[in-house]
């Protein structure tokens, strides 16, 4: 909740208001989300038995997370056996400091990165720039976002909020000449710019899609092949990995390699899959001479043991939940104000950063369940959102007015006769507000509703009130002929 707009503290609702006025942004998000949804449908249908694949994916991830201590020990042991250095970081600051220490030791002046959400989580770019170290994002989407001095607004499509024209302008500003909005021209510019950076970079930083415990391998999925450059050309390779991103064995990778690209972008397979086991050894023709793996906790281990929340660690960061989310569709990613947007962000952000900062995110959902249905590893995201709201209430963090309202709910709804009384009062209370059979007033506690919609009125007679008459009427006329009954809503005609 600490993002500032004009010097004021704001929450997700305020930030959304800005996004809702941005027609470019909303059109761009809708356009890409629609494409991804369509492609995903085709890619999952052509695979067949998608539900069985999801079930299998969920089992693998749940098993891994439930035995994380075991697999993490096995993984890190194998990374070290393969010549890698392993560092553990309790929080974002520690991880960032570890990166800095390595860069200092290497006297690095220039860094190339492939896409990594953990690197966003620890805010590394900012820190490097402060120390005068050049950082270049080599994933096309990340590069665009970097040029725009923004953060990713989607975990798979970082620049989903940008359209071609905006991208062309950014590239022109960065030195591109005679650019058009054509994909080929734009990617050619990025490719040429990056080639030099790759050759010059001292250190390459990547994320980690999956760590394979049985071998200590780091697996990276990309569509541009940039990870291969980042991990091979610079002398030093740093891997940033969330502590839960493990799979027990290569056999499990087969399931994930089927689930992840299909769920993420509707591709039946990722274009490049890079598997890196340790550093370059004698006889290897490529690979970094030194490899460092930084394992980040940052609130993750706190969720282990909480029967409900633990499943959030199953996430494989595919972004499918964002693509189907009707809230994300309207407001885009930045309105969430956190590194991880969309449904997974609304769960993960307040879990990783306890306290007030992201406490309102679980409320930015209509609980429609589209996310849970889309998730390739079956995380019940909408249940987790409710669970977080429950935590919020238990910790006494909700507003007094809201608590009073629900106390009133309890009193009224625990006894039918009390409810009856409450409804009678509501019927009286609404009198002043009713116009043309509904409520249009944009003031009062329901203004969130009435600002955009008319509200219905409490019926003159509740169903409870009508029942006796209805029942005796039906009893007396039991010759199955249906009597036409008046008292209907307005007709179509």
């Amino acid at each position, binding site marked *: 909740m600490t993002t500032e707009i004009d010097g004021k503290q704001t929450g997700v609702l305020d930030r959304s208001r800005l996004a809702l006025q941005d027609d470019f942004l909303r059109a761009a998000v809708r356009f890409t989300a629609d494409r991804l949804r369509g492609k995903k449908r085709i890619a999952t249908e052509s695979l067949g038995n998608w539900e069985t694949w999801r079930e299998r994916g969920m089992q693998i991830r749940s098993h891994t997370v439930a035995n994380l201590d075991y697999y993490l020990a096995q993984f890190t042991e194998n990374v070290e056996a393969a010549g890698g250095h392993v560092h553990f970081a309790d929080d974002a600051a520690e991880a960032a400091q570890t990166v800095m220490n390595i860069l200092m030791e290497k006297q690095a002046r220039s860094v190339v990165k492939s896409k990594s959400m953990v690197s966003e989580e620890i805010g590394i770019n900012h820190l490097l720039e402060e120390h005068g170290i050049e950082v270049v994002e080599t994933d096309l989407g990340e590069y665009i976002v970097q040029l725009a001095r923004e953060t990713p607004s989607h975990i798979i499509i970082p620049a989903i909020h940008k359209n071609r024209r905006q991208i062309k302008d950014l590239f022109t500003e960065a030195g591109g000449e005679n650019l058009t909005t054509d994909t080929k021209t734009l990617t050619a510019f990025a490719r040429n710019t990056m080639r030099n950076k790759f050759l010059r970079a001292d250190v390459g930083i990547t994320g980690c899609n999956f760590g394979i415990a049985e071998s200590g391998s780091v697996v990276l999925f990309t569509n541009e092949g940039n990870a291969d450059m980042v991990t091979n050309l610079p002398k030093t390779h740093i891997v940033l990995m969330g502590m839960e991103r493990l799979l027990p064995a290569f056999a499990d990778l087969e399931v994930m390699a089927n689930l992840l690209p299909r769920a993420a972008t509707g591709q039946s397979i990722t274009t490049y899959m890079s598997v890196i086991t340790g550093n370059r050894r004698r006889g290897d023709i490529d690979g970094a001479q030194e490899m460092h793996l930084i394992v980040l906790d940052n609130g993750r281990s706190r969720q282990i043991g909480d029967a409900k929340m633990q499943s959030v660690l199953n996430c494989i960061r595919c972004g499918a939940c964002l693509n189907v989310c009707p809230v994300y569709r309207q407001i885009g990613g930045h309105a969430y104000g956190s590194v991880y947007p969309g449904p997974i962000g609304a769960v993960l952000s307040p879990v990783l950063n306890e306290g007030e900062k992201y406490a309102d995110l679980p*409320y930015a959902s209509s609980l429609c369940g589209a996310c849970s249905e889309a998730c390739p590893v079956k995380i019940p995201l909408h249940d987790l959102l409710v669970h977080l709201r429950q935590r919020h209430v238990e910790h006494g963090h909700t507003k007094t007015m809201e608590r009073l309202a629900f106390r009133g709910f309890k009193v009224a709804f625990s006894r039918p006769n009390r409810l009856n009384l409450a409804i009678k009062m509501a019927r009286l209370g609404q009198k002043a507000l009713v116009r043309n059979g509904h409520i249009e007033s944009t003031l009062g506690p329901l203004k969130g509703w009435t600002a955009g919609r008319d509200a219905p009125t409490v*019926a003159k007679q509740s169903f409870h009130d009508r029942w006796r008459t209805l029942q005796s009427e039906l009893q007396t006329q039991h010759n199955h002929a249906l009597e036409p009954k008046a008292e209907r809503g307005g007709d179509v005609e």
Partner: protein
Amino acid sequence: MESYRDEHEHEEGHMMKVSLFVTCLVDNLYPQVGEAMVRLLDHLGVEVDFPQAQTCCGQPAFNSGYVDEARASAKTLLDAFEDANYVISPSGSCTGMVHHYYEEMFADDPKRVRQAVDLADKSYEFSQFLVNVLGVTDIGAFFPYSVTYHPSCHGSRLLGVKDEPLQLLRNVRGLELIDLPYDTDCCGFGGTFAVKMGDISTAMVTEKVSHVRETGARVLVGVDMGCLMNIGGRISREGEQVRVMHLAELLYEGVQAGVSD
């Protein structure tokens, strides 16, 4: 049309009995929906009873994180429907609540858990009951208008009500069913979400109404009054001339027309 009663009464010698779970929203804002349901069930030869002690499934409180408050209200349902054979509601969302959260909500109370499991086993959303229990897909209705159908999120995703309403609609004579683009996208209701995050919710329902408009249908039908209240509220604010109806209302009106037809 031969009604369910004609077929079954002499076979089994007694009428099927169901209990109506009217839901708080229909009870107080849309009682005509409950009435249409009762009349249709009666028409099909099903005897309906209405236990007075029911209030609300507790979902508004539960989804806002107030479990204790939700339980207080849910208990009224557990008690009211203790002896019921079938519990039929006009809402996939409220029945979904019973199915998915009651057992967990009362986990610390063995007696209540038993009641919760029992209630979930015998609870059906209206169209589900008609199609899957009664085996009725053609209710003998006549409704000569173009209609588009919005599948509510909880009904379709939590409870699995997918094709049942469409089966019933396809068999209504005179009715032209038009597919709603982006039909499975949420309308933005979400209970307190619609008030708390009013602007986001309004953006969502505005998109939903734009798709309804694209269909050119004269009637929007659904199986959940929460969503229909939301979409209807926006339709009315935009001055659209689309009539918003619960499936039970449409079928009941159609049966009346079918009888006199």
